[in-house]
């Protein structure tokens, strides 16, 4: 049992570090992205990484209350990506 729990702790630390590094690297792409599509894509990736961080925090603390948070982040991330792309495409969000 202790070996399994130790393995889970190590895996959780690795996942936290990977997601935090993913946030930093996609923020680099957001800063120096040459085109607008790259910036929208980097923002979308950052929202998805934030969703993963919230899910990981829920596993770490062993509670279920982060479900609503992650569902709201997923919905708002999709809507904001579509709104940004649509603003670039049409010059207007709701026609």
């Amino acid at each position: 049992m202790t070996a399994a729990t130790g393995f889970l702790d190590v895996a959780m630390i690795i996942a936290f570090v990977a997601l935090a590094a993913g946030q930093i690297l996609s923020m680099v792409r957001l800063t120096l992205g040459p085109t607008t599509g790259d910036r929208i894509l980097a923002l979308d990736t950052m929202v998805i990484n934030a969703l993963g961080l919230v899910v990981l925090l829920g596993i770490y603390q062993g509670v279920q209350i982060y479900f609503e948070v992650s569902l709201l982040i997923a919905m708002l991330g999709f809507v904001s990506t579509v709104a940004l792309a649509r603003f670039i495409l049409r010059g207007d969000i709701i026609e």
Partner: protein
Amino acid sequence: MSGEIIGTYAVAICLLIGAGFVTVGVIGLLKFNDPMTRLHAPTKVGTIGIGMLLLASMIHSFTFGQTSLHELLIMSFLFVTAPISANFIAKVNIHRRACETPPEPPRDDTWSTLNSPENGRSTSGDDAEKAA
């Protein structure tokens, strides 16, 4: 007791797979050298990476304490919306001519993404004639 150990190992392996796919996708987002190529990598973060993290969360709640299948809702929502947002970003790339412009369509004048009616009405002649 044995089921708890197997569940713990399954959660850890799912977390490792998810972290690996997130890392690979974000490195691809940073290192590829073309906007359309860059669009390819982060879709793996959205589907397999986060899907594996949500699967780990489900197995964790199965193993310790109360069972919950809420995560299936987030997973299906992400799987449905990821291609839509990728399609929108690809249309933005075509619209801003950040990539190679696709060949002309066979019958129409131009792609609707590239059509800009305010710069001269010649690109959408039929509509302008009908309106006039």
